[in-house]
């Protein structure tokens, strides 16, 4: 490890200081590659089936642009504030990091609240997961994304607790950086849900 210590000197951000952390981050990128493929299979299923609406509502009957835009802007802004959190971490400002992580959490919780309200609204209109092939694949795709966001919220709360207990260490810095990668990735997936599910659904 002497070689690694020599290689990853003081000029690197804290999360890259050890060989172990750098490999953890690389490993997480490989996990994200697998997640891309997971979501690709769900997108493929949805895009093949979304016009199979049976006797249930179609995409343009169901989707409302105002709700979708609120969700999109909440998640996009949370991705931005999560980036600011890492920026503050690299300036070694713990209070700035904690503040932006908290803002990110609140925006994420707002996103989930709107998404659950959207789903409840659909179910009340008789559009359940069992209504048609379109709705089955819709709820599975968008629900999987929502489950990821919910998991991200719990994960981020645990990281905040560790930061409060331990402050900046190479380990906590690496954990913050990895949860930030996860959070940005969820916004990347949402960009495609916004485009291929909602916008496409309102055009077709």
């Amino acid at each position, binding site marked *: 490890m002497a070689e690694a210590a020599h290689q990853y000197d003081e*000029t*690197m*951000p804290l999360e*890259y200081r050890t060989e172990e952390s*750098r*490999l953890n*981050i*690389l490993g997480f*990128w*490989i996990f*994200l*590659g*697998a997640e*891309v*493929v997971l*979501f*690709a*299979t769900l*997108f*493929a*299923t949805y*895009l*093949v089936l979304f*016009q*199979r609406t049976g006797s249930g509502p179609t995409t343009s009957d169901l989707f409302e*642009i105002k709700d979708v*835009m609120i969700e*999109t*802007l909440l998640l*996009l*802004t949370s*991705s*931005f504030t*999560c*980036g*600011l959190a890492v*920026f503050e971490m*690299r*300036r070694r400002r713990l209070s700035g990091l904690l503040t932006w992580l908290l803002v990110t959490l609140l925006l994420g919780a707002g996103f989930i609240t709107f998404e659950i309200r959207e789903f409840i609204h659909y179910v009340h209109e008789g559009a359940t997961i069992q209504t048609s092939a379109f709705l089955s694949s819709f709820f599975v795709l968008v629900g999987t994304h929502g489950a990821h966001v919910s998991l991200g919220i719990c994960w981020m709360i645990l990281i905040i607790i560790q930061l409060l207990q331990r402050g900046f260490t190479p380990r906590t810095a690496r954990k913050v950086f990895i949860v*930030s*990668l996860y959070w*940005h*990735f969820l*916004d*990347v997936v949402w*960009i*495609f849900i*916004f*485009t*291929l599910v909602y*916008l*496409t659904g*309102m*055009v*077709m």
Partner: protein
Amino acid sequence: MGANHHHETFPWKHIVGFILSLVLTFIALWVALSSGWTIKAILGVIVTLAVLQAALQLFMFMHMTESDSGRVQTINMLYSFFIAVVVVAGSIWVMWFVL
């Protein structure tokens, strides 16, 4: 390597990335709902805008290319996007008869 932005005092890269993301989102919204173009043209443009915005997140927010693993990380993501395109486009292609 690429890790020098912790010396910056203002998060320009993030703010530019955020504004560009907003612009791309609203252009896509306008193209889809108000442009009046053909469906093919609309789909082509909004998918392109989505890919651009995804790239923006990867480079400006996720710092994909930084550290000594930057190259491996970039190749890994490009490969996963390639698989994603094959899976999605391939599924639509073979199931074209039901669409």
